[in-house]
């Protein structure tokens, strides 16, 4: 389950001695991988990761002890925004296509793949619930998730259960019984 070990590395924690470059080097790959989980496009994931760090550089209050948490929170939020944007774009492209576009076997396969389903369900959940699930699946501990999403660590278990249940319901509503 630990997809990426050591999610929160030791970095400079003093806001006044914030070393942006070292935080960037330490976190970039992990953040890009979290984003890639959601957007499923490695090049786009790297672009969004850069944008996350650019926002960090422009947000002095985020540059402190919890910069890692802030970066994870922002990354998951931006990744979900990108996912929703992709889905909206697909929907409008379909609407604008005259007649019914014929799907290639590859596209058909892609659409029916589990990945596509999971991403669609994630896009439909409330954003905090999707963020919880993504960070958990990325291997963060409860404390790290709490730190990243700025919520009470004692609530994480309950919130995760609710998020899982919401995920299951949405999945079943869309695709029928889950295995």
């Amino acid at each position, binding site marked *: 389950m630990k*997809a990426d070990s050591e999610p929160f590395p030791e970095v400079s924690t003093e806001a006044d001695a914030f070393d942006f470059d070292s935080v*960037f080097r330490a976190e970039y790959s992990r953040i*890009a991988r979290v984003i890639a989980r959601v957007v*499923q496009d490695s090049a786009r994931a790297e672009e969004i*990761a*850069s944008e996350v760090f*650019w926002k960090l550089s422009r947000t002095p209050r985020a540059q402190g002890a919890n910069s890692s948490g802030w970066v994870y929170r922002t990354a998951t939020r931006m990744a979900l925004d990108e996912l929703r944007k992709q889905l909206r774009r697909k929907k409008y492209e379909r609407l604008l296509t005259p007649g019914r576009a014929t799907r290639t076997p590859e596209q058909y396969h892609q659409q029916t793949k589990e990945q596509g389903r999971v991403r669609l369900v994630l896009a439909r959940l409330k954003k905090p619930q999707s963020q919880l699930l993504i960070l958990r699946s990325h291997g963060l501990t409860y404390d790290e998730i709490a730190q990243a999403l700025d919520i009470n660590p004692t609530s994480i278990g309950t919130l995760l259960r609710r998020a899982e249940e919401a995920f*299951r319901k949405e*999945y079943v509503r869309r695709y029928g019984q889950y295995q």
Partner: protein
Amino acid sequence: MDNTNKHTNTTEWVDACLAELAPPPDWQPNPDLGLAHLRSYERQAKHRRRVQREAALAILIAFVLTLTVPASRGIARQLLDRFYMRTPEAVRSTTPRSESQLFIMEYTSPPFIGRFVSSAAEARKEAGFSPLLPPILVEQIASGLAVLKVSGPIDAHIKIRVRDLMAALQSRGIGANVPRDWDGVEIGYHLGPGILVAFLGGTLGQSQRPALITPPGFPLIDFTEIALEGAGLTASEAHNARNMLADSGGAFSLVPSDAKSNFHDVSLKTGRGLLFENDTDNDERQKCSFCPGPHELVLTWAASDRIFQLRSQTMTVDQVVALANSIN
């Protein structure tokens, strides 16, 4: 026990679903490329900020000029525009725009073209009042797509020269009697700080209602009627304007006969607004205080404690009205 099993099953199943999304293990993000991206964002953002600053500055200057520099029909109507903004009105003059100025406004406050602020809270601190903004602009400010600027305050005054006023009236064949004791009277004008949002579709300006300051007991309403006649309104128009000012605190903009812009009332959530539309390539901003630039819409309206002016060259009438109505 069943619930525990169900929960465990759900957790495992959700974990398995999300594990499908794991990126390929052989993919390694490239921090050097990421850093290059980041630097390019910085360059783009700097460029964008500079363009936004310059655009906002140009818009702000135009806005301040529109509000403060007298159009050539005389300073009197400009003062009235500033002071009585509860119910914006517009009156089409029978005469074209003239280059002669009946009154000269002298500014007593130092020039202040404003400065950018990063948030509504900072704007409130600088301007002394909270901006009322549509939610969409709040979002755009937060995301850097719109910029906030605080301008003002502006203090100025005019001095009445009875001889000049009489000469202007006589040149129009009006034999009005101007009291001699008005000679040398100064009418002060104060406009507090304003808050301007420059967004991709236009600008939204707002300020607390300005004030005219006259000597105690000075008959401002009588003076207004006479000054407006001197500025080009017919006797009946000037009298109507006087009644408007005296009865309802209505404000009006004197639109010269050669201005091509059309204007009409629109119904807003907060009451009535005045919409100017310019379908021509002519910039008419110097012709009257509400007049639009080329292909621009200008919506002016008042709330209980402030005046608003929304300008756009890209939005439709419906969009302008919807934006005004979305202000909380």
